[in-house]
């Protein structure tokens, strides 16, 4: 199965042929949907410059990919396509429409079934808080601020009791 040269996702059903100056032919595979979108339906052999039109459409697609940006980590969809790795959990939200066809192709499905995440979240946040308090305590001791250190130690102790229970 040949994939569409424009979207790279669907099966190509149409070949658009471009002839260069020397008369050498280059074929471009296009899927039905992209062909329809670009007004190429029914075209079997295009004008010699249609290749340029398609190349431009393709570069415009790439341009649009670089405009879809994850608000949290700043990764663009074009960047993801280059590296094959997403930048953060929010990328799944930000790129969802563009990712779905890719995920469907990889897994044959776009809905997770199976185990769901438990919320270890509360405990995890407590741990991060303890970690922060410990760092502060260390700093206070280094700075010989023993009053602050004692207060921090008490807070840590209380937290420790809570998390152990």
């Amino acid at each position, binding site marked *: 199965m040949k994939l569409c040269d424009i979207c790279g996702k669907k099966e190509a059903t149409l070949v658009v042929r471009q002839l260069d100056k020397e008369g050498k032919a280059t074929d471009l595979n296009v899927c039905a949907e992209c062909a329809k979108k670009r007004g190429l339906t029914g075209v079997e052999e295009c004008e010699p410059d249609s290749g340029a039109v398609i190349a431009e459409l393709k570069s415009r697609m790439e341009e649009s990919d670089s405009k879809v940006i994850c608000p*949290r*980590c*700043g*990764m663009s969809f074009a960047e993801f396509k280059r*590296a*094959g*790795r*997403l*930048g*953060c*959990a929010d*990328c*799944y*939200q930000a790129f969802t429409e563009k*990712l779905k066809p*890719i*995920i469907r192709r*990889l*897994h*044959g*499905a*776009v*809905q*997770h*079934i*199976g*185990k*769901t*995440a*438990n*919320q*270890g*979240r509360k*405990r*995890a*946040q407590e*741990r*991060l808080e303890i*970690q922060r308090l410990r760092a502060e305590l260390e700093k206070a001791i280094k700075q010989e601020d023993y009053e602050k250190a004692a207060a921090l130690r008490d807070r840590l102790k209380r937290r420790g009791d809570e998390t152990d229970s």
Partner: protein
Amino acid sequence: MKLTPEKVGTWLSSSGPDSDVVISTRVRFARNLIDVPFVVRMKQFEQELVLETVRWALADIGFLKQGRFFEEEMLAEPDGLYFVERHLASLDLITSKTRKGLFVSEDETVSLMVNEEDHIRFQVLASGFDFVTAFGKAAELDEKLEGQLAYAFSPEFGFLTSCPTNVGTALRVSVFLHLPGLVLTKEIERVLRGAYALGLLVRGVFGEGTESRANLFQISNRRTLGQSEAEIVEVVSSVCRQIVDYEHKARQFLMHNLRVEVEDKVFRSLGLLRGARIISTEEATDLLAMVRFGVALGIINELRLAEVTQLLILVRPANLQAVLGEKLRGDEQDERRATFIREKLVR
């Protein structure tokens, strides 16, 4: 300090079910922490934060009390290759420039990488064809870790991973197969194509890509989303069951019809290993695998399956040097490898 180099993981003990064909079963989960970017986008303090948080979580898990956590210097090349050869870490972890960590349980059946492609990737290995042990232990560890850590999860896409190929259950299960019978009867192509058609991924173990060395193969699931964990295990396990049965049939066929030819191959391999004065890792691997076949078939009785299987790991460059306790140049290595194998196979 390494873990004891001459003592390999118990998953190489060839004591589990169908160990004559299945060397080991592996179950791996990928997880990422919520509120921290994925590894490609992490700043150094975030890498350290994840490292510290995971270390902390692991320390609280009872059945992992006996184990060690390795960091930077231990994991850098070339020393880190030791863990790669032992199937405890990936080459990506060793070669990456991020702040990273590797936890290894004392018996080397559980390992956990921090800041590889995902924040956390942990695996459980079991000897032979044994999803009950491997999956059971991995699910237990997942459960325990989740009591301490908050994972990135979406109801739609499941556990979120850096690469969409792992999203969903983020579960990869695999079996490490020794299939000389199917290779010698030339049935292997058909079997591996069949496994691929059923949605599995087939790789050679020591070669690049699908090229295989020494008739060793790894089969795993391709899909991680749209199937439950139990279904994924079921698919891989049922296909593997068929392959194991087919390999057994091929071995029976060979023993009935081509016994002398098989014996010839096996004893020539043993002879070469016992006589060689210089031997590369690749040649040693091929020959050891053929000897393993001979032991499994009962053609060779003086060696045990476990010791031959373990040699497959111990003769690899970083492990050989760790066992001998010396750094060796390439040419010295081939000579010392030959000596090491000779001593091990003497009876």
